């Protein structure tokens, strides 16, 4: 019994030591095949295949996929989620040995969906590397350096029982049909760049959207299958709208695509893009998305920050932002201003006994027209006036006496209305009168000689 307990104790201690050794043991390199330190770096296989190019060299632009640019940071990580590459692989070396792309990636010929894995099975490596991957868990290493497990499997340790570090190339958030492209004799390099000049092919060798547009810009009626619509390549949701939210992030257009980079000033810039292309925005956004701001009932904080109720008068006069982008002034603005008593014509009880909103009448409305006269404000930005005033407020003075306007002299019977028309109006008044006489008749009697002049 005592012997059994002692054995158990020894076993426990051995396990503990083993565990501690395991914890503090240095990773794989100790178990990996020893490189020959005598070889120059260029010939030393251990320094190759761990990065696109050895010694941190950058892949020349000519070898990167079409559409790549010097500082683009690779393709979109939203479309191509982050990869875990725990395999040493030297494409350049393999190509130099006369191995073509499809020798290993033969599944590409028949692949019709992007979720297909096009990586070769490990057994494909065995013929040259001398290894034997046929039985999982009982893989046999080759005799040469290149046949050792740790040669290809980064971080491999013999003590881990043939376990390798996780390797993953997540499927792209994209539609892609390799077979169709190959059937059309589209060479791998046309999308992936010159992988034969690269050692480890990383996400940087994956296609760029800008490169796709080399072919995918056929006008819709010209047909063909290389169509330029977003949904040709991008995943869609109901109604054909692009899916833009993924676990890997949110899809936003690059700046070169319709000048539509959704940068920090996009809120000021977006109207230029939306106005020029009737359907571009609707690739990703629903009607509701646009109307939440442009016809919304909840104040968007991005547009109207802080105490907007008190700040908005100065913003409206500055026309920044333009109220009419989202509001109808003679209903939305005026209705609230009438309720709050901030109007000239409105419910009497709401503004009875209040002070002046504008400067005193002697300055604001009466002649002579000083620099603080309302006429200048009206000319600067008439929208600000329209948000509080109805036409009656203006017609009181600007209408001619014969239609009830008070005129310059006041009292409704003396003098002529104050002419608000811009310079050059005479040349346009006939056309305006012909199209719509109503505003003319607000201020002018039908028999007014000035009106007759326009006829």
């Amino acid at each position, binding site marked *: 019994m005592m012997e059994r307990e002692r054995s158990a104790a020894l076993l426990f201690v051995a396990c503990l030591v083993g565990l501690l050794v395991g914890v503090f043991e240095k990773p794989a390199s100790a178990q990996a095949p020893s490189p020959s330190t005598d070889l120059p770096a260029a010939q030393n296989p251990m320094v190759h295949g761990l990065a696109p190019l050895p010694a941190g060299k950058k892949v020349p632009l000519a070898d990167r996929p079409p559409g790549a640019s*010097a500082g*683009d*940071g690779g393709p979109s990580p939203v479309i191509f989620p982050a990869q875990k590459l725990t395999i040493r692989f030297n494409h350049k070396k393999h190509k130099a040995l006369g191995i073509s792309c499809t020798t290993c990636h033969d599944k590409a010929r028949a692949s019709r969906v992007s979720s297909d894995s096009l990586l070769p099975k490990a057994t494909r490596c065995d013929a040259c590397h001398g290894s034997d991957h046929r039985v999982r868990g009982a893989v046999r290493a080759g005799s040469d350096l290149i046949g050792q497990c740790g040669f290809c499997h980064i971080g491999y340790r013999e003590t881990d029982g043939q376990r390798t570090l996780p390797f993953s190339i997540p499927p792209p958030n994209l539609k892609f049909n390799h077979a169709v492209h190959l059937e059309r004799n589209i060479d791998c390099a046309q999308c992936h760049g010159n992988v034969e000049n690269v050692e480890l092919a990383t996400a940087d060798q994956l296609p760029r959207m*800008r490169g796709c*547009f080399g072919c995918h810009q056929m006008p*819709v*009626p*010209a047909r063909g299958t290389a169509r*330029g619509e977003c949904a040709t390549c991008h995943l869609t949701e*109901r109604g*054909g709208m692009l899916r833009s939210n993924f676990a890997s992030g949110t899809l936003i257009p690059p700046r*070169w695509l319709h000048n539509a980079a959704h*940068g*920090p000033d996009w809120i*000021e810039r977006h109207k*230029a893009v*939306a*106005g*020029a*292309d*009737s359907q571009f925005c609707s690739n990703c956004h629903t*009607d509701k998305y*646009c109307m939440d701001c442009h*016809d919304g*009932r*909840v104040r968007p*904080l*991005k547009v109207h*920050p802080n105490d907007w109720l008190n*700040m908005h008068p*100065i913003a409206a*006069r500055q*026309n*920044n932002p*333009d109220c009419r*982008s989202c509001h*109808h*002034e*003679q*209903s939305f603005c005026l209705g*609230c201003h009438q309720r*709050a*008593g*901030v109007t000239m014509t*409105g419910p009497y009880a*709401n503004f009875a006994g209040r*002070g002046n909103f504008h400067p005193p009448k002697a300055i604001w409305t009466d002649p002579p*027209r*000083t620099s603080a006269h309302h006429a200048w404000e009206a000319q*600067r930005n008439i*929208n600000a006036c*329209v948000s509080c005033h*109805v*036409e*009656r407020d203006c017609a009181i003075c600007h209408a001619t006496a014969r239609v*009830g306007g008070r005129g310059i002299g006041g009292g409704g019977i003396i003098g002529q209305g104050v002419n608000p028309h*811009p*310079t050059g109006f005479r040349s346009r008044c006939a056309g305006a009168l012909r199209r*719509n006489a109503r505003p003319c008749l607000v*201020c002018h009697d039908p028999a007014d000689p000035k009106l007759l002049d326009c006829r």
Partner: protein
Amino acid sequence: MLSTALVVLGLGVAPTTAAAYETEVDATTDAQFYTLRSPYGEPTLRRRRYTQTLGLAVYGIQGDSVPYGPELSFKARMRLDVDFGQRIEERDPNRGAQFGDRFVPGLEQAPLDLMYAYLEGRNYAGGYLGFRLGRQYVIDALGMWAFDGALARLTTPVFLQFEALAGFEERGGLPLSTPRWEGDGVYRGDRTGYDYDRWPMFLEAKKPAPAWGFAIETTGVQFVHGRLSYRKVINRDTVVVAPFADAGQGFRTVGGSRVSSERLGYAVRAEANRLGALNGNVVYDFYVQRVSEYRVGLDWYTTDEITLGAEHEYYLPTFDGDSIFNWFSQQGMSTSTGRATFTPSRRFDVGASGGVRTFRTEGNSGQYALNGGDRSETGTLHDLLADLGGRYRWSDGSTGLRGMLETGARGHRVGADLTTNKNFDEGLYDTLLVLSLYDWSDELRPERGVTSFTYVVGGGFYPLEQTRLGLEWEHSINDLVGQRFRVLATLDVAVLR
């Protein structure tokens, strides 16, 4: 809870058997509580708002979906917008004797509107024909607009598509409609129940306003895109002209068809892949017979990280053809800005812009009274403006700063917002924090200048996929209001079938 009921109702309408088509029903509920006090102290408006929208979309009505083949879908959204804070005397003209005159023409407590409802077909006739039928939006150089009617789109093999539309403009005085999309500058609505001499300046809007137009747009060319749009809308209601009674205590009216708006616009953008982009637009208003706006912008993709740009914009306010305000617009305003954006990584970007806005007047405001009202000289007033924005995003959140300045002879406004969003528990919860500091002055109303601090804290919870329950608290502190509070509660529910 009403939203839940509406969704359930929507589900009742939606098919439950297997079908080629897909249905999407969603509802949003917003409840807002805040108080608005007149700058004169009284009246005080208690805003107790409840807004409910209900959306329905059906896709794949055509049957089996074929790539690039015909597609037929239907989309609709209704909205109920209630303000429980309104007082009855604001809507009932006969309560004046009891409460004083507080009647506001056109004010409704619970307007119900159909935001959009259209049947859309795409890729018909071999891919050459598309159409929309029903209430729909149009977005182009002429602005955003909504109408009830039909739009047909013909795509040709020569890089052009043609569009024609006809119908009636959405107008506030009509059932299930808002005035949001009609021409501005006219105070109008449904006058049913009004005596002829009661609020004569509130014009009748009862008859549908016919509208038609066309567009020619490029298609299939990546480096350049342009759209030419023309639209005409006709007013038909008989309305009062001068808002003053004549000797016989009557009001002169005008009726018949007349132009509400008639405009032609063109917008274009052109890109050189790595070099930059050029964009611009111009709008001509046939009623006013003037160019009412134009804009030209240039962007230079200086490096992969830096974009430099410049823009010049001109804007002359124009209005519905029934409005006298068209004839008070004189010189318009123009804005010239330069901008730069720096995007060193996908997580971080920053942008800045600055420029000047020029308001022009006929006559020099400082000299006008002295030089006998000489209107030949153009007076100018300038505002300086600047914006600064930057964002940093990480996997489950972002923080951003937006600052702005506009200052000129009539006052200034300067301030910034710092906004942070963060999700927790893999998006099960989201949070919002906004800190906002602004200072403004109004030279025409010096007593209304103030420095104001506001913070917003909010959060959301997703009890089910596609369902979010949110709450926001907003607190403003400044000398004008002392303390102002606003509470926003939201419930968004979507059911996909």
